[in-house]
């Protein structure tokens, strides 16, 4: 997967943010846990020390200092027990091996380093100093090494759990994002294909018990495309239907006009009027014919009928047919034709070439030069028709290939507005590309056919 594309995916971004938040939450939770654990542990230590001090003070009351000293000695020997120090009023050590603490009465936390008492691993310690009635001082202490160990264990546990969680989160979100990305890619690819004109392509669908929002997205996208396809089909159907249905009555009008001409008995005014109406009817019929022809080219399964044909021969034949007319209009037509075999329908390609020549004839001033060339570009047969007329502004070049599009300047000249649309449709049918280029000055139309498959 491309890294930039991966990082650009919403899934990965969300996953990264989630992981960072998870780690932060984990650190805060860990710190709180550490703190509260220490606090609770320390509370327990304090209670224990206070209780021991109280017990020993009570022992002093009932049995005297000697008993306290022996209790200290035995307590000191208890494994895992407390630490003691008992000194009399004169400062003499009576029992216990806790070094002098220098701490005031009551509970005190002492931060000793290991060197303070050689041989004993005291580090942090909490002591409780109690003055007995005779002035002697009892110190009860709790070594906090265990607390340190607990804290370290806790920290390590939190670190590894948190780290593992973060790594797992990242990996899982990567996998999830990749899956999501693939499905989004499917929708994007479908959208691209449709924009490129493949109206039948749809976003992939998967079978899911619980459809998620991407299934929803794909489904809505497909529904939208179906709706668009239906609309396009309906528009086509309607326009084709109109052309078809109006053609019959128009045909009848035309037939009636011929009878009018016969009935006119040579009356020049009637003949002229009939001729004029006939001209209009013929113009209408031509537009309808072009529409029907276009619909037919765009929808018909033609490829099966395609035969190999020499584009140069066809183009030359049509150029020869048009040449006298083009020259009669004060223009020049030159050809440069190299044989190039195309798999196609000669009638259709012929019409496309004819339309291009008629366009060049109709939209250029007298004296213009029209050039037609057939050659091969990297195995692809290519037809080029250029003129040195006014050309088509770059921004409009896509539009003129559309149905009924006519440049403002051409509104008043005869034509159906379908000439180049038919050229585009014929090219599309043959898998050929149409390009409208600047001939500087003028227009060049290039139709590039696909290379002939090796036989």
């Amino acid at each position, binding site marked *: 997967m491309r890294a930039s594309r991966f990082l650009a995916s919403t899934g990965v971004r969300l996953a990264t943010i989630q992981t960072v938040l998870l780690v932060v939450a984990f650190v805060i939770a860990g710190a709180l846990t550490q703190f509260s654990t220490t606090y609770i542990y320390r509370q327990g230590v304090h209670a224990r020390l206070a209780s021991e001090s109280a017990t020993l003070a009570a022992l002093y009351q009932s049995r005297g200092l000697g008993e306290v000293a022996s209790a200290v000695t035995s307590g000191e020997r208890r494994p895992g027990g407390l630490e003691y120090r008992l000194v009399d009023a004169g400062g003499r050590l009576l029992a216990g091996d806790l070094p002098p603490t220098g701490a005031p009465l009551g509970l005190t936390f002492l931060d000793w380093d290991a060197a303070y008492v050689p041989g004993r691993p005291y580090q942090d310690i909490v002591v409780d100093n109690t003055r007995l009635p005779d002035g002697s001082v009892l110190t009860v202490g709790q070594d906090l090494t265990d607390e340190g160990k607990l804290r370290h264990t806790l920290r390590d546990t939190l670190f590894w759990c948190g780290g593992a969680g973060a790594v797992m989160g990242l990996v899982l979100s990567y996998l999830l994002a990749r899956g999501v990305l693939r499905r989004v890619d499917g929708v994007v690819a479908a959208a691209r294909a449709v924009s490129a004109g493949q109206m039948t392509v749809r976003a992939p669908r998967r079978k899911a018990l619980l459809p998620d929002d991407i299934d929803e997205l794909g489904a809505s996208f497909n529904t939208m495309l179906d709706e668009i396809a239906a609309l396009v089909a309906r528009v086509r159907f309607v326009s084709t239907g109109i052309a*078809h249905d109006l*053609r*019959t009555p*128009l*045909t*009848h009008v*035309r*037939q009636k006009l*011929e009878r009018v001409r016969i009935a006119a008995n040579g009356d020049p005014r009637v003949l002229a009027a009939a001729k004029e109406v006939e001209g209009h009817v013929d113009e209408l*019929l*031509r537009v309808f*014919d072009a529409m*029907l*022809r276009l619909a*037919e*080219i765009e929808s*018909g399964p*033609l490829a099966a*009928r395609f035969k190999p044909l020499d584009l140069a021969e066809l183009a030359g*034949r*049509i150029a*020869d*047919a*048009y040449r*006298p*007319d083009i020259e*009669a209009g004060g223009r020049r037509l030159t050809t440069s034709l190299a044989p190039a075999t195309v798999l196609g*329908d*000669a*009638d*259709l390609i*012929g*019409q496309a070439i*004819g339309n291009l020549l*008629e366009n060049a*004839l109709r939209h250029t001033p007298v004296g213009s030069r029209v050039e037609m060339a057939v050659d091969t570009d990297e195995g692809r047969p290519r037809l080029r028709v250029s003129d040195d007329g006014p050309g088509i502004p770059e921004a409009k070049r896509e539009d003129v290939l559309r149905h009924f599009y006519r440049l403002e300047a051409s509104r008043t000249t*005869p*034509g159906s507005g379908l000439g180049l649309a038919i050229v585009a449709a014929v090219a599309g049918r043959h898998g050929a590309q149409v390009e409208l280029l600047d001939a500087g000055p003028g227009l060049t139309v290039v139709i590039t056919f696909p290379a002939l498959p090796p036989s």
Partner: protein
Amino acid sequence: MRVLVVEDDLQTAHYVRDGLTAAGFEVDVVDAGSVGLERARREPFDVLVIDRMLPGLDGLSLVTALRRDEVQTPVLFLTAMGAIGDRVEGLEGGGDDYLVKPFSMEELGARVSALARRPSMRGRDEARLRNGDLTLDRLQRTVQRGERRIELLPLQFKLLEFLLLHEGDVVTRTMLLEGVWGLRFDPRTNIVETHISHLRGKIDDPGAPSLIVTVRGAGYTIRAR
């Protein structure tokens, strides 16, 4: 000359009948494919004019059935729309010519006449076509008018040859477009007119009436002499 018209659209049927009758044909009209098939089998028509779209038995099936029965009467198909596939299918299915509605009476008349005379194949096999003092040698590809040798461009030669082969018949613009240039669409320019005028300029004697006669609203003809 007898023509059978198989057409279900009443108005077109009448239009065709009246037009062909006026052109001197004896015309019978039927509106169903099955009836048309029966009559075409039993009666000696010179040309059949058949609509592609008919209720019941359609035009193409009708002609296919006829050809299977070895009835070789020339057939001209009529169709409401010039579907690309239709034309090829029609001609492959046994049709001899093809006309897209709307058509002018002159066009139909010219084509029916051409089909009606087709069996004789006038001049088809002749190496030399003659009309008055004009001689066209199809092997040498030369043209002579009296003693004058005329140089023609290949397309002009083909055009003259086509007209001479249809000598005495009206040849329409679309027949020329198809027959001479192989164009099966309607150019919106005066291609044919311009070519004819160039050809006239070469073959006609100055001042004399043209060999190629314009038939108003229909096409051109070279009169048989």
